[in-house]
C-alpha cells in the first residue's frame, strides 16, 4: 500500500470527524463552559478574600470604638436597611415619596449606629456609617456575582457564564477600589468625590457655619464685592448632607434674589479623558437618586436663576479613594473657573450661591 495516500486518507477522516465534533455536538460549548467556570471560580475566591478582609477591618475599627459584639452589630447591618423604590407608574409626587423614603432610611441607619455607639463625635459616627455601607456593597456585589454564576451552571447557560467571566476583571477592580476606600475613610483623608466640598472650602475663609439642613452648613462670605453663600456638607466626617434642601431654603430666604447658583461636583470620566480634567456647563452637577437634584432645579426654575455646573473628571475608583494629586490640581483649576464665572456673570453687590457637592470626609 502507498504510504502517502494512507496518511492523506487518515487526515481526511480526521477532518470530517473534527468538523462533526465542532458543528454537531455541544461538546465545545461544554468545554468552554468548564473553562469559563474555572476562570470565574478563581476570581470568586479573590472576591471572597476581599469581602473577608473588609469585614475584618470593619470589625477591628468597631471594637476600637468600643462597640460590644461588633460582629453581630455589623452582620445585622449588612442584609438590612434596603430601600424599596417608590411606584413609578403613577408619577405624581414620586420625588416627594422617594425623598421621604431616603430620609427615613437615613434616620434609621443613624439611629441604629447611634444606639450602639453611644455619644461619640459626629465625624466618627459618620465614618462608621460609611464603613458599614462599603462592607454591605462589597457583600452585595459578591452575592450578585455568585447568583449569576450558580444560575449559569445550574441551567448550563454558557452565554451567562461567559458574559460573567468577561465582566469579572471589571467587577474585581470595582470591589478592590471599595475595599481600598475603607482605608481612606478610616484615616479620614479627603476622597476624590470631595472635590466639591474642597472647592467650597477654598471660598469660605474664616466665615462661621450655620446649619440650614441636616449635616449641611451655610457660610456667608464675600468675594470681590459679591455676596457669596457657600453650601457644603458638615465635615470632617464622611457625609454628603442634603444640598438640595439647603439650596431651596437659602434661595427662599433671599426671596429669589440670587444672580447664579454654581454647583461643583466630581464627574465620571470616560476612558479617553484624563483624571483631573475640569469642564463647565449648565445644570445641577449632583449625582443623587433624584430628590436633591430636583430641589436645585425647581428652585432655580422658580426664580429663573441660571444654574452653572463645574465638574472635575475622575474614575469611579478614584472618586472613592484618597484624593490623588492630579485630582487636587483639578480642584485648583475648578476654583479658578468658579472665580471667573463669578467675576464675569455676577455683578458687584449681587448674591451668588456656591454648592460643593460630594462627600466631605477629611474636609472641614
Amino acid at each position: 500500500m502507498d504510504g502517502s495516500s494512507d496518511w492523506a486518507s487518515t487526515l481526511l477522516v480526521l477532518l470530517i470527524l473534527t468538523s462533526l465534533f465542532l458543528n454537531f455536538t455541544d461538546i465545545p460549548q461544554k468545554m468552554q463552559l468548564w473553562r469559563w467556570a474555572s476562570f470565574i471560580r478563581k476570581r470568586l475566591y479573590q472576591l471572597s478574600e476581599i469581602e473577608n478582609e473588609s469585614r475584618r477591618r470593619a470589625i477591628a475599627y468597631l471594637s476600637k470604638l468600643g462597640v460590644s459584639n461588633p460582629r453581630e452589630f455589623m452582620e445585622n447591618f449588612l442584609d438590612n436597611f434596603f430601600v424599596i423604590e417608590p411606584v413609578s407608574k403613577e408619577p405624581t409626587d414620586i420625588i416627594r415619596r422617594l425623598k421621604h423614603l431616603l430620609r427615613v432610611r437615613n434616620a434609621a441607619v443613624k439611629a441604629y449606629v447611634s444606639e450602639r455607639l453611644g455619644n461619640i463625635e459626629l465625624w466618627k459616627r459618620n465614618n462608621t456609617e460609611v464603613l458599614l455601607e462599603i462592607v454591605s456593597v462589597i457583600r452585595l456585589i459578591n452575592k450578585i456575582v455568585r447568583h449569576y454564576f450558580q444560575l449559569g451552571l445550574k441551567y448550563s447557560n454558557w452565554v451567562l457564564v461567559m458574559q460573567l467571566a468577561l465582566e469579572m476583571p471589571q467587577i474585581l477592580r470595582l470591589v478592590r477600589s471599595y475595599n481600598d476606600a475603607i482605608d481612606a475613610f478610616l484615616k479620614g483623608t479627603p476622597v476624590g468625590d470631595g472635590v466639591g466640598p474642597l472647592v467650597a472650602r477654598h471660598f469660605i475663609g474664616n466665615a462661621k457655619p450655620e446649619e440650614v439642613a441636616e449635616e449641611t452648613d451655610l457660610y456667608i462670605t464675600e468675594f470681590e464685592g459679591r455676596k457669596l453663600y457657600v453650601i457644603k456638607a458638615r465635615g470632617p466626617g464622611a457625609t454628603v448632607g442634603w444640598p438640595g434642601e439647603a439650596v431651596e431654603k437659602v434661595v427662599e430666604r433671599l426671596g429669589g434674589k440670587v444672580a447664579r447658583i454654581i454647583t461643583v461636583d466630581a464627574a465620571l470620566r470616560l476612558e479617553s479623558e484624563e483624571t483631573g480634567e475640569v469642564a463647565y456647563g449648565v445644570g445641577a452637577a449632583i449625582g443623587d437618586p433624584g430628590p436633591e437634584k430636583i430641589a436645585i432645579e425647581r428652585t432655580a426654575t422658580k426664580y429663573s436663576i441660571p444654574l452653572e455646573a463645574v465638574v472635575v473628571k475622575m474614575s469611579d475608583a478614584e472618586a472613592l479613594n484618597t484624593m490623588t494629586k492630579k485630582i487636587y490640581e483639578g480642584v485648583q483649576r475648578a476654583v479658578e473657573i468658579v472665580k471667573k464665572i463669578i467675576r464675569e456673570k455676577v455683578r458687584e453687590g449681587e448674591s451668588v450661591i456656591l454648592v460643593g457637592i460630594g462627600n466631605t470626609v477629611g474636609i472641614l
Partner: protein
Amino acid sequence: MQLDPLILGLLAVFVVLMIYTLLSFFTTRKQPAIPPKILTKIACISGNYSEVREFREGDYVGKEVGKCPKCGAPLLIVAVYSEIVRQGGKEASARS
C-alpha cells in the same frame, strides 16, 4: 525508520500550544504596585508661606496647625492628597 508526517505535524501543533499556554501563564504575573504616599499641604492664610509634609492621623482640610513662621498668621491645612513617589526620585516633601 522515517517519522510519519502526520505525527510530525501533530507534534508541532502540540509544542506550539504548550509554549502558548506556558507563556500566558508566566506573563500574567504583575509586579507589586508602589503604595502611594499621602501628603498634607499647609499654607498661611495670608498666602505667603506653604509647605508639604507627610499626612498624620487627625489631619483634615481646614484644621489649624500652628502659626506662620514668616508673619505669625494661622497656618491651615489646605489639601490632603496622595502621590506616587518613585524610589530614587526627588524627595516628596518640598518647601516653597
